[in-house]
């Protein structure tokens, strides 16, 4: 017989309680997996948008961390183009708007001819003209709004014509509407203003050169800053709120899971005081008793971790498929996420099991033997 046989027999003996504990841990881990996947996915999708566009640096007002910051003068772009190492500059005006029945979508106004258009694949129709009230829809937004080329879309008080449907490698763009910059400026009453410049640097500029360019922009343009794609996504308030909510929910789930685990292990120790007394009497050392109880706790938590990861994975897939959230969230179901879930489960097992295990192992054998 192996030591692990004793552990599994102990757990299997109280199978209902063990099962309920596994369910409790699984719910906690599932919440962590789902919330973290969505929060990470939100960040990844914005980073993906910048990467897909081939944006090396995004320039905006320093103070703004919103994904749709306050507008500033478009003429700043002309100065940016003159900086050494800058290959091209694209002006953008981004806003988040409720559209018809939809609760909210990202609407982009992009400068015609800018490099940001290059990565989009036109599936049908044509690109919007600067002087027409028309726009293109991403594949997901077209499906969500139930529109096709030639359809009309009501944005605030203006009606736009859908002149094409496109596809992007970035989810955030597939779920968006894009029009020419002048139309967006009129729509949002920001004529002559933009809220981002996307910069591409010359191919010969290395990492150190990009960093130097960031520094130059910060120094030369008061109140402005240049972010790399990943920095911009992680500084984004939307991403930060999503991450904070994810962590807060996860923390609550984890505390509940740890208390549940501790309760189960404590109950199991108190119920088995007599048996612990027997083990001490027949010569089991205290560390072995501690190890046995701790391993029981770890076995429960790791099983809960596996079940919770599967539930969390399915929950994210399910949420992504719901009409309400389709195209708005993209879970980052990466190996790192499941490694984190494993570590969380491991932590729960240690946290919930250590104290009861210590208490169990410290019993006086003659006292423990008297319990029946």
């Amino acid at each position, binding site marked *: *017989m*192996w*030591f692990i*046989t*004793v552990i599994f*027999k*102990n757990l*299997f*003996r109280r199978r209902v309680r063990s099962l309920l504990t596994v369910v409790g841990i699984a719910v906690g881990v599932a919440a962590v997996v789902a919330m973290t996947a969505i929060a990470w996915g939100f960040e990844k999708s914005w980073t993906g948008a910048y990467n897909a566009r081939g944006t090396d640096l995004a320039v905006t007002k320093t103070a703004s961390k919103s994904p749709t910051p306050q507008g500033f003068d478009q003429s700043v772009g002309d100065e940016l183009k003159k900086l050494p190492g800058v290959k091209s500059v694209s002006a953008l005006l981004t806003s988040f708007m409720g559209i018809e029945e939809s609760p909210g979508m990202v609407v982009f106004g992009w400068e015609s001819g800018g490099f940001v258009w290059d990565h989009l694949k036109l599936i049908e129709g044509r690109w919007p003209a600067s002087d027409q009230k028309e726009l293109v829809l991403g594949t997901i937004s077209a499906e969500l709004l139930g529109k096709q080329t030639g359809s009309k879309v009501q944005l605030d008080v203006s009606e736009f014509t859908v002149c094409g449907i496109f596809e992007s490698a970035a989810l955030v763009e597939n779920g968006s509407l894009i029009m020419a910059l002048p139309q967006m400026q009129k729509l949002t009453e920001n004529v002559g203003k933009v809220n981002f410049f996307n910069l591409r640097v010359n191919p010969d500029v290395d990492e150190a050169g990009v960093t130097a360019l960031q520094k130059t922009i910060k120094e030369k343009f008061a109140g402005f800053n240049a972010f790399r794609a990943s920095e911009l996504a992680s500084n984004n308030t939307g991403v930060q709120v999503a991450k904070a909510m994810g962590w807060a929910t996860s923390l609550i789930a984890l505390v509940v899971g740890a208390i549940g685990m501790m309760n189960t292990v404590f109950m199991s120790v108190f119920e088995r005081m*007599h*048996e612990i007394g*027997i*083990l*001490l*009497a*027949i*010569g*089991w*050392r*205290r560390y*072995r008793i501690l190890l046995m109880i701790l391993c029981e706790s770890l076995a429960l938590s790791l099983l809960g971790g596996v079940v919770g990861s599967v539930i969390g994975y399915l929950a994210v897939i399910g949420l992504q498929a719901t009409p309400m959230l389709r195209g708005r969230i993209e879970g980052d179901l990466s190996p790192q996420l499941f490694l984190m879930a494993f570590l969380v489960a491991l932590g729960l097992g240690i946290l919930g099991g250590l104290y009861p295990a210590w208490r169990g192992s410290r019993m*006086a*054998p*003659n006292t423990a*033997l008297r319990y029946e």
Partner: protein
Amino acid sequence: MSEFLIDVRAVHRRYDGGNVKALRGVDLSIRNGEFIAIVGPSGCGKSSLLQLLGALDDPDEGEVLFRSESLRTLADPSGFRAKNIGFVFQSFHLLPTLSAVENVQMPMFEMPWSATERRKRAEALLHSVGLDHRLHHLPRKLSGGERQRVAVARSLANEPQVLLADEPTGNLDSESAAQILELLDEIHGRRGMTLIVVTHDMNVANCAGRIVRMKDGRIIADNSTASPPCGS
């Protein structure tokens, strides 16, 4: 080095904040290989003395020496029990979720033996107590006599020098009690172990080579006997 394996010197043990005086100055010296019965009325301190001999408890005063070493100073009492002491209890104290052969293996985790060796040793021990056909039965599927035989096999698991039995026949019918008694006597004879039995049963006590009588926490008589055949 003392000529005695175990030396109990002026031992006192009190419970309940000193209100209950279980042992009041007990002295007892035990040679290697002796078979001793400790007898006396309930509450006379027999079981308390047995717990001190097995390092399950510490005396309030006095000391218990094992091979001239005080048990009070043991850094690792569990390790001491694992190597030197086997216990047999009145209520068997088997682990309910484990089969007979698994119960016998439990003390062996403290020995440097592989899982295969543990299993072989446990099977051999159960064979020696006549339970070949009950290896994989859970305790609840065994009779009282069979459970106690499993407990005896478990007490021998690590080849201890001393076997301590607390009312080993107390929960058994007369037939099973006679079988256990015979088994203990055979173990003592065959293995040359030191056997200390706490009992009310004079059939058991009469098997011993020495009978220690206790009353009110003291030893009132300590007689060597010409031990007759067990069960006679």
